[in-house]
C-alpha cells in the first residue's frame, strides 16, 4: 500500500515541477528543431535520431533532477517523518524512481511520436518502417532513461553534496547508460539485448541504493 501511495504522491509532485515542465515542452521541441535545423543525419530516420538525443539529454537532466531532489530532502531531513512510519525505507526511493521515470517516458514518447509523424509526412516512410523506428527509439529511450534514473537514485543516496552528486552524474551515469548501446552500435547485438541489459543494470543500481538507504542513519 505504502509504495503505491508514495508513488502517486511523488508523481503528483514531479509532473508539475518546473524541471518536468521543461522536459514536457523541451523534448518535443527538440524533435521539431532537429527536423528544421539538421539537413542530413546520415540516413538515420528522424524518429531514431530523436530517440537517441532525447534519451541522452533527457536522461542527463533526469539524473541530475533525482540527485538534487534526494540530496535536498536528505539535507532538510524530510525523510524523518516518513521513516518513523510503518513503511519500507526503499519504497521512498522506488516511488521516486517510478514517478520520474514515468514522467520522462511520457515526455519522450510525445517527442518520438512527433518525430515519427514528421518522418511519415516528409520522408515517405511506410507505416511498417515508422513503427519499427518508433519501437527502436522507444527501447533506446526507455533503456537509457531507466539507467539514468536508477543511477541518479543511487548517487543521491550516498553522495555527500549536490556538487559531488552532479559530477558523478556527468562522469558516471551518463557514460554507464551509453554502454548498453555498444552491442547495437558495433553491429553484433540486437535491440532486445539493450533492453535486457538496461533492466539488469537498473535493477542492480536500485538494489544498491536500497541497501545503502536501509542502513543509513538520519
Amino acid at each position, binding site marked *: *500500500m*505504502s509504495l503505491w*501511495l*508514495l508513488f502517486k*504522491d511523488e508523481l*503528483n*509532485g514531479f509532473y*508539475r*515541477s518546473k524541471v518536468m515542465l521543461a522536459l514536457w515542452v523541451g523534448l518535443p521541441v527538440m524533435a521539431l528543431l532537429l527536423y528544421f535545423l539538421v539537413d542530413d543525419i546520415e540516413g538515420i530516420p528522424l524518429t531514431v535520431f530523436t530517440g537517441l538525443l532525447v534519451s541522452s539529454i533527457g536522461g542527463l537532466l533526469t539524473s541530475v533532477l533525482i540527485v538534487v531532489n534526494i540530496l535536498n*530532502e536528505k539535507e*532538510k*531531513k*524530510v525523510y*524523518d*517523518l*516518513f*521513516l*518513523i*512510519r*510503518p*513503511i519500507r525505507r526503499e519504497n521512498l526511493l522506488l516511488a521516486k524512481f517510478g514517478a520520474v521515470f514515468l514522467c520522462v517516458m511520457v515526455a519522450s514518447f510525445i517527442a518520438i511520436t512527433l518525430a515519427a509523424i514528421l518522418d511519415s509526412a516528409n520522408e515517405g516512410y511506410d507505416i511498417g518502417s515508422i513503427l519499427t523506428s518508433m519501437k527502436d527509439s522507444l527501447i533506446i529511450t526507455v533503456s537509457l532513461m531507466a539507467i539514468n534514473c536508477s543511477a541518479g537514485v543511487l548517487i543521491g543516496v550516498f553522495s555527500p553534496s549536490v556538487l559531488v552528486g552532479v559530477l558523478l552524474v556527468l562522469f558516471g551515469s551518463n557514460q554507464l547508460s551509453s554502454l548498453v548501446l555498444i552491442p547495437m552500435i558495433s553491429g553484433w547485438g540486437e535491440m532486445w539485448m539493450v533492453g535486457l541489459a538496461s533492466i539488469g543494470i537498473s535493477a542492480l543500481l536500485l538494489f544498491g541504493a536500497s541497501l545503502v538507504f536501509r542502513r543509513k*542513519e*538520519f
Partner: protein
Amino acid sequence: MVGNSGEMVSVRGLYKRYKDLPVLLNLSFDIPKGSIFGYIGPNGSGKTTTIKIMTGLIRDFQGDVTIEGRSIRNWNTELSSTIGYLPQQTSLQEWRTVDQSLHTFGRLSGLQESEVSKRIKEVTEELGITEYRKRKVNKLSGGTLQKVGMAQAMLHRPKLMVLDEPVAGLDPESRVLFKNLFRQLSREGTTIFFSSHILSDIEDVADTIGILGQGRMRYIGSMEELRERVGRSTEVRLETVEPLLNDSVLEIIPGITRVERVADNRFHILLREHGEMDAVVDRLIKAVLAEGLHIRAIHPNRQSLESLYLSYTDQEGSP
C-alpha cells in the same frame, strides 16, 4: 525485555558515540504511562540523539529502549503506530499543501481514507491552522509549519508522542496553545516526551523532568522535588555593620564547614546540612553580637531553579 506495565518507555544503558565523540553515556530512565516528561539539557547534550534512537531513526547504538515492553530493536508496524514524532525542525516536501502532507502521513500511519479527512479537520482545528490547509508548505511561517508538524504527530492518535523542542521558535500565544494541548493529551492517556534547552519551557507543564548533562541523566524526578531542592539551602549570607576582622569567630561555630570573606563586613557561610540552618543562624547571631558588632543582614542564600539546572548540567556534573 519486558517493561513494567506502568511504564510507557524504558531506557536502559544507552550508549552512543559519533566517531570519537561520545554523546550518550550509560543513559537510563523510565517514562510512566500518561505522564508529561520534560527532557532538558543544554545544546549538544544528546537530547536529539536520544529522541532519534527512541523513534528508530538511529539504529546503531548500545543499550536498549522498550516502548510498552517492546524493544525498538525489533522495529515493526505496531511500534511505529504507537509513536507520534515531531522533529526539531519540521521539514515537508515543499510542493505539497498542508492537506496533502497530512493526508499522506495519516494514510502511512494506518488511518483509513474515510478517517483521514475527519482527523485532519479535527487536528487542524485544534491547532488553529484550518485556514492554511490548502496552502503549500513552503509558503508557511516557521510557527505555522511547527503546528503542521504537531498535527502530523497527533493525527493517528499515538499512545506516545516524542517531541523535539516543540515550543522553540513559537510565539507566546502558540506556546500556551501547545502546553494546553500537552495537558489535554496527557489527560486522555497519551504519554508525552518532549525536550527543551530552556527550563521555563517545561517547568509549568511537565510532571516529570529529566536533566541531561554530558550524556548522563543528572536529575530525574518531579518538578516539585526539584523546587524543594532549591529551597534546601546550605548557604547563609551575613553582613555586619562594622568590619569583622577575625574569621575564626565564625569558623568555630558548630555546623559551619566553610567561611568565605567577600568584604570586610560580608561573608558567605557554608553549612554542613540544611537541617541545621535554624540552630546555626542562632549561634551565628550570638557570636557576632558577642564580638560587639551589629548585624545589618543575615539570610539563607536560596539557589534559583535556573542556577540549580545549570549546576546539574555544568562540566563537573551533579551538584
